[in-house]
C-alpha cells in the first residue's frame, strides 16, 4: 500500500503582480521501504512539492492522498504531527534546547510525558549514531553532521512512515553527507520508512531507489 499518492497536483503562487505555476499536474505514488530522490533545477518545483507532501499547504488543484485520505480533507496540523516528518538542509534545531530536548519536542507533541519522551529521544539519538556525550549539548555545540543526526532522530521521534528531507546533506561534507544518507537509506530499507529526498546531488540520487526529475513544475523523468 502506498504511503502517499499525488494525483495531478498543481500549485500556483499568486501575487499582486504575477501568477506562477509552481506545479503543473504532478502524479506519483510513494511506497514504504523505498528512498525517493527528487531532482531538478532551481524553480522546478521541488520544494513546493515537498511542502505539499509535508502538509504545509494544500494543492491549488489535484489531490495529495496520504494513506488514502486527501490532505485537503484533514486537519493539516494533525497530519503534520502524525503522518509526516521533515528534515531540513539547515537542520532547524531549537537553539535553546539540548539535542535530547529537540528530539523530545515532537514526541511530546504527540502526548507523551517528558520523562518517557526523554528516554525515547535518547534511544533515537543513539540509533542515529550520536555518542552519549553530546546528548545534553545545545545545537551551537554540535557539528553539522551531529546536528543533522539530531534532526533525523527528531524526525524519527514523530513515528511516521513518511520522512521528507529537503537537501539533508546540502550543508554537510561528503563524509558526513554519506553517513546521513546511509541512515536514511537504512530507515527505508530496514524500518520500512518512505524516504523522500529533495536534492541537487546527482550522485546521491543515484543511490536512491527511485529518482524523479522535475522541470518547470512537471515530472520530466522518473
Amino acid at each position, binding site marked *: 500500500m502506498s504511503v502517499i499518492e499525488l494525483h495531478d497536483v498543481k500549485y500556483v503562487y499568486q501575487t499582486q503582480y504575477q501568477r506562477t505555476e509552481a506545479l503543473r499536474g504532478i502524479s506519483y505514488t510513494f511506497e514504504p521501504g523505498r528512498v525517493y530522490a527528487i531532482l531538478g533545477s532551481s524553480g522546478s518545483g521541488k*520544494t513546493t512539492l515537498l*511542502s505539499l507532501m*509535508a*502538509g*504545509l*499547504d494544500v494543492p491549488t488543484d489535484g489531490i495529495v492522498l496520504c494513506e488514502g485520505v486527501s490532505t485537503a480533507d484533514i486537519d*493539516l*496540523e*494533525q*497530519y*503534520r*504531527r*502524525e503522518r509526516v516528518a*521533515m528534515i*531540513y538542509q*539547515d537542520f*532547524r534545531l*531549537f*537553539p*535553546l*534546547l*539540548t539535542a*535530547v*530536548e529537540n528530539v*523530545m*519536542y*515532537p514526541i*511530546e*507533541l504527540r502526548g507523551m*510525558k*517528558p*520523562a518517557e*519522551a*526523554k528516554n525515547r529521544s535518547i534511544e533515537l539519538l543513539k540509533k542515529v549514531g550520536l555518542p552519549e556525550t553530546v*546528548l*545534553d549539548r*545545545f545545537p*551551537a*555545540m554540535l557539528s553539522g553532521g551531529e546536528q543533522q543526526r539530531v534532526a533525523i532522530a527528531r524526525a524519527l521521534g*514523530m513515528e511516521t512512515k513518511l520522512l521528507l528531507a529537503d537537501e539533508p546533506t546540502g550543508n554537510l561534507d561528503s563524509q558526513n553527507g554519506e553517513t546521513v544518507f546511509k541512515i536514511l537509506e537504512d530507515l527505508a530499507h530496514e524500518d520500512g520508512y518512505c524516504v523522500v529526498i529533495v536534492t541537487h546531488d546527482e550522485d546521491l540520487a543515484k543511490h536512491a531507489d527511485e529518482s524523479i526529475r522535475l522541470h518547470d513544475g512537471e515530472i520530466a523523468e522518473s
Partner: protein
Amino acid sequence: MLIRNGINSIIRERARTALFSLLIIFLTVTMILSISVLLYCNAVMESCDEAYRSIALIEYMGSEYPNQDEPDAAARAAAEALSDDDILAVPGVTAWTRGSTATAAAEGYERRFGKIPYGNRGVLVVSRVSQPVYQGTKLDASGKPIITEDSFFYHTCFLKTALYSRSVNEGIIIDIIDGSGLFEPEPGKSYVLNGSFLDVSRSARELGDYPKNGLPIFLVESFIATDELPYAEYVEGTEIPERFLSAADQYRVMNNYIRVVPCRDVNDVYVFQQNDLHLAAGEMPDPGAPNACVVSADLAEALDLEPGDVFTLEDLQSTDNDRYDLISTGNMHSYTVTGIVEASFDYCGTIWVIAEDADTPLFGYLLGTVSLDNKSAEAAAETLQEIVPDQVRVTLLDQGYGATVLPFQEIRSTAVNVLLICSAGVVAVLLLFAFLFVGRQSDTVRIMVSLGTPGRKIALWFLSGALVVCGISVVIGVVLGMLLRPAAFHMISKIAAVGAEEALRYSETSLGIMKQTSFDPQIPLWPDLLAALGIVALALLFSLFFLRLARRGGTRKRGKSRVRVPHGLTTVHGEGGLRFALLSIRRGGLRSLVVPLVSMMLTVAVLVLSGVYQTWQDELDNALEETRIDGMVVSLDGRYYSGLAMPMDAVQTLLDTEGVENVSVSFGYRYWLPEDMPPFKDSEGGWYLRQSWIAAQPDLIALNSLSAAKGFYYADPAVTWLEGWDESMLSETDMTPIHLPTPHGKERGTIPAVCSTEFLEKHGLRLGDTFDCMAQYKRVGYAPMEFSVTLQAVGSYVQQGGKANVYAPLSCYIRKDQWEGSAVPDETSEKPPSRADALLTFRTCRFYLTSARELDAVRKRLWEQGFSAVGNMRKNRTTVLLRDAEFLKLTENMKRNITMGRVMSTVISLLIMLLGFIISWLMTFSRRREFALMRGFGAQKRRVFASFFLEQAILSVAGCLVGCAALFRLYVGGVTQPLAVVAYLICYLLGAAVSIRMVGKTDLMELLTIRD
C-alpha cells in the same frame, strides 16, 4: 540611483510604510497642536497679566463694618499691629498703602456732593422775631390756644444774615424752634443763632407735628463740643460774638473738606481697580512721582485745574472720635495734577495722590490696600491672611484674573502632559521605525558591503528612504496641524469662558469686577516647525544608529566569530507550552533579563503614579467630607454682609433649597438702658436730638445662631454661658416679637440675651442678672416705635471694638412658628400657610451647605432660583456668596491632578501596551524560525502562542512582583495601586499577545524558508 533604490526599498513595504506614516502624521499633528496650545495659553496668560491688576484689601471685621466713618478702637489696634515690613516681605506684594485718608482744605472749594457732615448746620442773624406760634393746641372759648408745658410753638422771623448756611439764602422768612430749652426770644428783636436746618420732608414723617406753613425750619441747638449758649441777642452795628463767627468758619471748613487718598499707585486704589471710577482727562500718575495726583472733576472745576497744573491745599486734622471734626493746621502741601476723574457723588472733592501713608487716625475698617503681582496674588493673599491679626480679613480682588487664567492653566498643563507623552511616543515610534526600516535590513547591508559599497553610499541609501517616508509624513502633519490650529484656539477660548463662568457662580473667588477681555494672541509658527524638524532629525539619527548596528552585524571582525551557547542540561520539567517557555526563560540569557527589568521599572512607575493618584483621591474625599462651606447674603459688590434688607420670601427660598441647611438670620433693634440716655427736652427739637442719639446706640440683635451676628462672621464666637444655657436658646426660645403686642395682654417675659463683658462690667451686671432696656423698631416708611424689654444676661462675649451689641433669640423679631413654617394659616385667607412676609426683612443671612459635595449642585439650584451673584443682578435681588475660596483652592488643585491622573493613566496604559507590543515583538520576531518549526511539527497554534506568550508573561509578572516588593512600603492602602498594577500587566500582556499573534501570522510556507 542609490537614493531611488533606497526610497523604493522602503516604500515598497506598503503596509508598514502606511502604518508608520499614519503614526508619524498623528504624532506630528498632536505635537504641533500641543505646542500651539501651550504657546496660546502662555500668550493669553501674559495678556491677562498685563490687562489685569490684583489688589488685596486688608479689612477689620468689626461689629460696625462696613461703616467707613466708625472710630473703632479695635480696628485701630489691628492697624497698629500690622507690620509694614512683614507685609512688604510677602512674595508677590509689590506695594502696601495704609487705609487712613487725610483731609485738606482749598480756598474757593465748596463741597456740593458726597458726605457733608454738617450740611444742615447754620449760624444766622435773624430779626423781627415773632410771638410764639402755637400749633396743635386746643383753643379756649375766646379762640386763644390753651398753652401747657407740652404745647408746641415756633417763631417766625426774617433771616437777615447767614454767617454760614448751605441750605437757605438770606432775606427770607424762616421758622425757628428752640432745641436748647433755654431760648425764649423777645418778639421784634434780632438774634444771632447757632443750630440746624431741619429736613422738612423727614421731619414730616418723624416729628409728626411741625410748622405747617412750608417755611424752612431752623432748630436752635448747641455748638459742637462747647456748652456756650447757642443764641445771643444782636443789636445792629455791634460786633457778632466770636463763638458764632468761629462756628461759622468751623462749619465751612468741615463741610468743604477735600479728601486726600494717599497711595503708591492710583490704579491699585479700590475704586480704580474695580473700574468704579475712570479718568476723564490726562493720565494716571507714575507710581514713582511723589505728590502727583488725579483729582475729581468737581474739584478740578472748582479750582480751575487742568492736567499739568500745580495747586496747594492746607492740611486739616481730624479728632480721634470724629472724622469730620476738622481743624486747620496751617501746613500747606503742593500737588501736581496728572489726570481728572469723572467721579460719582461719593468721590467728589477727592484727590488720589502718590504719597506716603497719611498721618491721621483710622476711621472705618479698611486697614490698607496691598498691590499684588497677578501671578502670585492668590498665594500672597493667603500668606497675608496668615500674618494679619485675628478678625482681619484679606480680600483678594484680581479683576477676575485668577478665574480667567485658571482654565488656561489647566489646558496648558494638559498640553504639557500631552506634549511629554507625545514626545515619548515620537521616540518610541521613530525607534521602531528606524529599527524596522533600517536596523532589520542587515541582509541588504551585507550585500552592499560585499559589493564594496562605500559606507557613505550605504548611509545615503537607507537615510534617503527614511527621510522621504518620515519627511513627507511630517510635512503632512505640519499642514494638518496648521489647519487645525485656529479651530483648537477657538475651542480653547470657548471652553475657558464657559469653565470660568460656571465655576465662579456665587463663589467667593469671583469677588470684584470681572473684566471682559478678549484675547487674540498671535502665536508664532517657528516652534511648531522646529518640533517638526526635530522629528525628522530624530528619525535620521535613529536610522543612523540602527544602520551602524546593521553594518556592524553584517561585517565580521577579522578572525573572530562568536556564537552564544546557552547553559544547562536536559530537563523534563513542565509540559506543553509552559515547558518551552520555562526553557526559553532559563536559557534566554540577556533576553530573559530585559523583559523583567523593563517590567520592574514600569511597575515602579505605575505604583508611584497610582499611589500619588490614590493620595490625591483620598485627600479630595477627606476635603469633601470634612470641609464645611458656608454662604451668606451680601451686597451686590460682594463686600458687605450686614445692614442688608433681605426679604423673608428670599430667605424662605433659601430655606427650601436642597443642599442648604442652618440658615441663620438676624435683625437689629437699637437698644439702650433708660439710665444711659441723656435728658432731652420734651420738645420737637429734643425729639430730633434724641433720635440721633438712639441711632448711635448698639443693637439688640435677634438671631437664631451666633453665626449670623455680623461681629462673628469672621471670628468664632467665644461665649461664656450661664449654666444651663447654650446657643440653642437663640433658635429654641419661643416668644412674642418685641414689636408686636403680646397675646391677650400677657407679660412679655424676660428675654435671654448674650451681652458683651464690657457692657456687663460697665453696668455692674453679672451673668444671670436681668435688666430693663428700651428697644427701637424702625421700618422704612413708618415712624419708629419704642418698647421696653427685660433682658437676662445668659451669656457673655469679649467685645472686639465696635459697639456693645446684645444677641437675643430670633423670636424677638419673628414668631418661632412663622420662621419654622408651621404658623397656623389665617382661615380667612385663601393663600397657603407661608413663612413669607413681604414686610419682614433681615439684616444678615448666613447658611451652610449640607455637604461640600453639594457645592456644584447648590450653585446650580441657586442659579435656577434666580438669586443674584456678585456683580450680576438677577430676578431675585438677593445676592448670595458662597465662601468656597479655600475649599476650591484645595480641591481644584486635587481635581486637576486627578483629572490629569486619569488622562495620564489612559495614555500610560496605551503607552505600556505599545511598549509591551514593541518589546514582545522585538523578542519574538527574531525567533520566527522557531515558530515555523513548531508549526511544521504540527504544534497547534494555541500551543505555539502559549510557548511564547507564557515566556513573556512569566518574565513580566516576575519583574512586576520584584517591583511591587521593592515598593511595598509605598502602598498607600485602597485598591487603586493593586488595580493599577493589574491594569499595567493586562496592558503589557495585551501588547505582547498582539505582537506574538502578528509574528505568528506569517505564512507557514514562507516561514519554513526563512534563513536567519
